[in-house]
């Protein structure tokens, strides 16, 4: 059963449309890549441990032949110990390099050009407000144009919440008295679930919204529409 697990996991990951692994932005794709990379490396580790585990428990299981045996004293093994100290370092390095890269990339939220769209995201118990530069405000939906860079300015008026659109980009907390930012360029039109990820009290579960990514012209039209 233990051997089957990795296979099962792969089946699940490819079989279902798991939201975080089907990203619709480059940042989201980077994060999905990291998840898959770390998963791959770690499955190697799990496989090694499971194989050794099965071999040892099957082979050295107490039976009628060895019941009276007294195993030889074994202090340890220099070679083996060096091996399982250094190999993890190598594996971790493979993961650490892209981690550092993408972490720095994800925290660069400076607008790339004049054309960048800015949206204020204001979280409160238990509601989201999305305020556009022209003064337009929405609550239940965040509307974004496709293929255009957007910087989200995350704020909170009461407790800590967390802005999360799994298919678009990983979460970032909204903290009272502070402003956090996220930069993302959605590259596929569609409607994506958004959620509050940080527990914020009674209505936390219902603090949901939709992110609608629509073509640029439609977006301009929508933006100039009076509400």
């Amino acid at each position, binding site marked *: 059963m233990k051997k089957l697990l990795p296979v099962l996991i792969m089946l699940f990951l490819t079989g279902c449309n798991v939201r975080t692994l089907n990203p619709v932005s480059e940042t989201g794709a980077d994060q999905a890549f990291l998840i898959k990379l770390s998963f791959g490396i770690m499955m190697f580790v799990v496989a090694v441990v499971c194989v050794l585990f099965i071999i040892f428990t099957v082979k050295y299981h107490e039976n009628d032949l060895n019941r009276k045996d007294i195993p030889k004293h074994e202090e340890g093994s220099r070679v083996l110990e060096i091996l399982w100290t250094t190999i993890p370092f190598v594996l971790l390095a493979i993961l650490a390099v892209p981690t550092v890269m993408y*972490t720095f990339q994800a925290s660069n939220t400076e607008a790339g050009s004049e054309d960048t769209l800015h949206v204020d995201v204001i979280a409160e118990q238990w509601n989201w407000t999305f305020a556009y530069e022209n003064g337009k405000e929405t609550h239940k939906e965040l509307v974004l144009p496709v293929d255009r860079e957007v910087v989200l300015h995350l704020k909170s008026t009461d407790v800590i919440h967390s802005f999360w659109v*799994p298919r678009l980009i*990983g979460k970032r907390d909204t903290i009272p008295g502070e402003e956090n930012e996220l930069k993302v360029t959605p590259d596929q039109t569609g409607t994506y679930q958004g959620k509050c990820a940080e527990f914020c009290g009674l209505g936390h579960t219902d603090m949901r919204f939709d992110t609608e990514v629509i073509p640029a012209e439609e977006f301009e039209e929508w933006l100039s529409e009076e509400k």
Partner: protein
Amino acid sequence: MEFSFNGKSVFVPTDVIAGWLSVLIITPIVLYIIIKNRYWSTILDYTTTTNHRKIGTLYILFSMLFFLRAGVDALFMRTQLLTPENEFWVFQGEKYNELFTTHGTMMIFFVATPILIGLMNVAVPLQIGANDLAFPYLNLVGFYLFLTGGTIFFLAFFFNAAPNMGWTAYAPLSTDSYTPGPNNNFYIFGLQVSGLGTIFAAINMMATIIRLRAPGLTLSRMPLFPWATLITSFLILIAFPVLAIALLLLQFDRLYDATFFLGELGHPVYWQHLFWIFGHPEVYIIALPAFGIFSDIISNFSRKNVFGYTSMVISLTLIGLLALMVWVHHMFTVGLGAFSNTFFAITSMLIAVPTGIKVFNWLFTMRRGVISMKAPMMFALGFIPTFVMGGVTGVMLSSAAADMQFHDSYFVVAHLHYVIIGSTILAAFAAIYYWYPIMTGKILDDTLGKWHFWLFLIGFHLTFFLQHLAGLDGMPRRVYEYTQEDGVWSYNFISSIGAYLMAVSMLFFLWNIIKTHRSGAKAGDDPWDGRTLEWSVPSPPPEHPFERMPVIDRRDMFWWSKINNKPLPVAKNPRPSPIARRTFQPMFLAGSLFILSFGFIYGWVWVQILGGILSLSTFVIRAFSDERTEAYKREEEENEQ
């Protein structure tokens, strides 16, 4: 349900009524059993003695009771999440928030931590050839502080005031601006009182391990459970005071309108730093002793010494050190900046190296051994793959950019249960089966133990494995419902079934204990063909089992003395050692602190003053009394003769 009382109508939710009803039913049954079997003297003996084994047994007993309570909370949660938009009983919204807060807090502070301290109490002195802990009186005080804290927290629900801010108590939600009322005060005082007890236990363990080892038992010959206990004690001594400070600041915010965690001067993120500077070491405080237990059990049931003993000790130490500098990995989404995120990402990844060393050493301890599949060993075997799966998702989480997706989702829920149940809870079960003869003189039934193990392990993986996927599919933690189109129904359904299976497995465990006490066979001495000193004494051990100190000149000395057919050499002179005495003082202190805490929780100043006076008077009483005087007098008289 609405009641009219004195002309006023009072609303009491049905779950609270059910809680009181179950108390009304259970109390007479327990009383009946106690009276019928005349347990009074045993109860008096256990609740007032300073003997380490009895205190340890009490720790384990009460942790187990809290485990059942918090487990019931988990079952309610899983039932609420059984199907999309389910409405089970009252557990939506606030009541659900109370469930997961109680479940998390209780499992961490009143189950995982004290059950390990209980096991240390039972085993560590015997494993190092000490007659008792260095400070037996302090030990009993520590136990009563744990029991008082646990009881305060336990009672919150019965007053319809269970804490509801999550076990991490993030500010400013945890301040009185957003969660007014007594609810979260129960959290503060429950943890504050029991935390003090944990600190006392740590000091006691340190002093015992450093000062009271048998002659010749150098640190480099010590079994790994005492080693893990020693390092854990240092971690407790660093981490728990930080929690105490954080709780005190929160108390001032809540009760006296201070603004440490909100407003112009304060900052909510201060709480997160303080909490996780405590919280991450806490993870290792409950993991390291588990590692120690498994090292001893795997070695014992493979009939082989621990492979790579030195690297085992070094990696324990390294994990302990690294545990102190990774706390920000719980805060990757706070926005502390790329530099700090990557720094803490790397330090977190590094923990995988010493942990990996330990895993391979366990595996190679079994290699070329003779593995006897008894119940304790089954739990140890279940631990290895389970814990490795939790460990690798830990590495995945440490990748800061990827954590933006994992954080606060069911992926984290899955990870933390894999790690904590995988290590601490499996270790606690393994150790209970293993050391049961020491605690009670009887041995638990092996077949029932295996039923318990398999059902628990299968139930566990059913419950938590698919939660990884629910998290990756965008299910945040701490939500009481999900919709059909979220697509996480199948995961949640199977998860709930797994939780029921785990509950069934616990019935086997309870039945095993009842059966063993009714008709179980005496364990006899050294029932597992042990290697370490605790098996060199009768089960259960008498008080002062090492009146003649064994002299140790190698690791697993007891095993070698059996192999070579030579009795353990003993030292010529007995060593003066602590004496188990009877004392009611800690019980009195517990009552005083209980009153004091309720005074603060409900803001009753007169009760605070009363509780304060009573608590302080314990110090005065203690200053003028010494429960050992009698024994000293007797000794002196004997010397004069």
